[in-house]
């Protein structure tokens, strides 16, 4: 990391101009709508009676999608739709932890590196280099195999590996912020450094944190899926997206929906998150 790696911070949009904004585009509505449906299903459906993703209808294994079982049943006669909904809960829970760890770690380190510069910056940059030169997935697999595949372990580990990237972005923004007029002015009139940090710098980091949340969620969903696929994810029969998709691969020939239906839901969710994150980024925040 170097001092030259700064990005210009766009001038704040006047409130009047922001108030007269356009309505959200069709794409944003579709992406947001899809995410809302998935989130709502994950929150509400498990409360309904008859929702049991672990219940096997043994007389009806590997049934094709149709009435009764919208997305069919898996080899154990369990409802694929219900398992996909339950899997969303696991995936989003992992994502929540990932975001928390990434934001706290990356936010703090990035602000520290950009604000104090010098040796602090050097040490943090070195630590980020270190974390980036070990194969992420392999390290997560090792720790999961030693500490057990629990949801907190997986979420925190994935979060840890999102820290360097977020640190880098936050650092770049803080570096260029400290060159800006309003920060210089605050310094000039003798505002305490901590107050400048909290009042002037942190609010500008917040929008980047929001775009980071979208990226981190997709990273968490894909990483958890990859881990489940390798047998290092949440333990079956407890469903997670990756777990369900992995379970279905043995019956890919006879009952492809067991894998492909949750896979489609996963891809659409990642696509929607990417799209919204992208729109947000182009509106000002980076991450």
């Amino acid at each position, binding site marked *: 990391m170097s001092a030259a790696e700064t990005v210009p911070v766009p001038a704040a949009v006047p409130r009047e101009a922001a108030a007269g904004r356009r309505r959200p585009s069709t794409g944003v509505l579709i992406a947001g709508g899809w995410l809302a449906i998935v989130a709502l299903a994950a929150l509400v459906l498990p409360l309904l009676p008859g929702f049991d993703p672990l219940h096997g209808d043994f007389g009806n294994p590997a049934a094709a999608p149709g009435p009764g079982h919208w997305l069919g049943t898996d080899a154990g006669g369990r409802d694929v739709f219900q398992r996909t909904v339950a899997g969303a809960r696991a995936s989003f829970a992992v994502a929540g932890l990932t975001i928390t760890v990434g934001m706290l770690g990356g936010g703090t380190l990035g602000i520290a590196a950009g604000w104090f510069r010098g040796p602090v910056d050097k040490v943090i940059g070195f630590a980020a280099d270190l974390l980036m030169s070990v194969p992420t997935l392999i390290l997560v697999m090792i720790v999961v195999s*030693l500490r057990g595949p629990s949801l907190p372990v997986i979420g925190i580990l994935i979060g840890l590996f999102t820290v360097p990237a977020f640190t880098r972005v936050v650092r770049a923004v803080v570096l260029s912020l400290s060159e800006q007029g309003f920060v210089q002015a605050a310094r000039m009139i003798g505002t305490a450094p901590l107050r400048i940090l909290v009042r002037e710098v942190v609010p500008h980091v917040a929008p980047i944190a929001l775009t980071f949340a979208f990226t981190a969620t997709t990273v968490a969903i894909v990483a958890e899926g990859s881990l489940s696929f390798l047998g290092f994810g949440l333990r079956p029969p407890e469903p997670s997206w990756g777990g369900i998709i992995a379970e279905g691969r043995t019956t890919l020939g006879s009952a492809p929906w067991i894998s492909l239906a949750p896979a489609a839901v996963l891809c659409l969710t990642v696509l929607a998150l990417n799209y919204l994150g992208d729109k947000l980024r182009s509106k000002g925040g980076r991450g």
Partner: protein
Amino acid sequence: MTPTALRTAGRTAGRLGRAGAVLLLVTVTALSLPHLMPGSPALAALGPTATPEQVTAYEAKLGLDENVFAATWRWLGDALHGDLGHSLSTGVAVTTELADRIPVTLELFVAAQVVALGLALPVALRSAWRPGGAVDRIATAGAFVWLAVPGFVLGLLLIWITAVQLRILPATGWTPFTEDPLENLRHLVLPALTLGLTEAAVFTRTLRSQLIDTLDQTYISAARSRGMGTARLLLRRTLRPSSLPLVTLIGIGVGTSLGGSVLVESLFAVPGVGMLVSGAINGRDFPVVQGVVVVSAVAVVAATFAVDVLYRTIDPRIADERR
């Protein structure tokens, strides 16, 4: 020495020192992995009936009887003599295991790059030539959608289409190139496509935006006004300066592809480094895991250096003041 040469030498020495420190710390981390295990790794591996002598022998083998730094020092000393220890489960030297597996993973990596570049280069060139045109819009949207498909889903889809529905390619397994080149290629197609197609989307995006920037330069307009042909203009004048971010991406890919190869090799049952390490992790075969982690960190560091050198070769305008 001229001042510039002196500065270059100093900077290179600094980078080497930094790389050395990274490798040292990775080694310490790899060797402290058994300590992360709750309880006694020896008892977990040998079972509750193990005699104290067996436990002591096991701990000595893993360097658990000394502190991590002493263990690292000894491990590095042995490593310099070409000894990375022996697998706990097979007793084979870790170096032998690696020598067996690295060529397979390397073949996969190269094939994936061929797939990725073969797709990205023409698509990006065509897109950047007419930004906002039909080809560009389709390619950009396509890459965006494509990036939402994770590797394991893509691999599964490829198996479903080619091996289950069309029955034209083997879904899993491997034949060494030396045994039967044609069979080897048939087994290579699906894993290489899985790794390469995802990369192709990333490559296309990066190369396209860089090409558009380069095409905006005055020397391009100058060349065009002199009557230089389109093909020559794109390939000789535009592609070379635009390929720098691509080189970085391929360099980074050396590190990330090892993670990707774990997934792809397990999905397609390809006996490479990824399969070796996931088996070793499952079997608590620490010497093998440590060997793979350190060797892959060396590969990442070496790739970073190679990217630096390539940068200068591709674009001599980049002076050493870049950083």
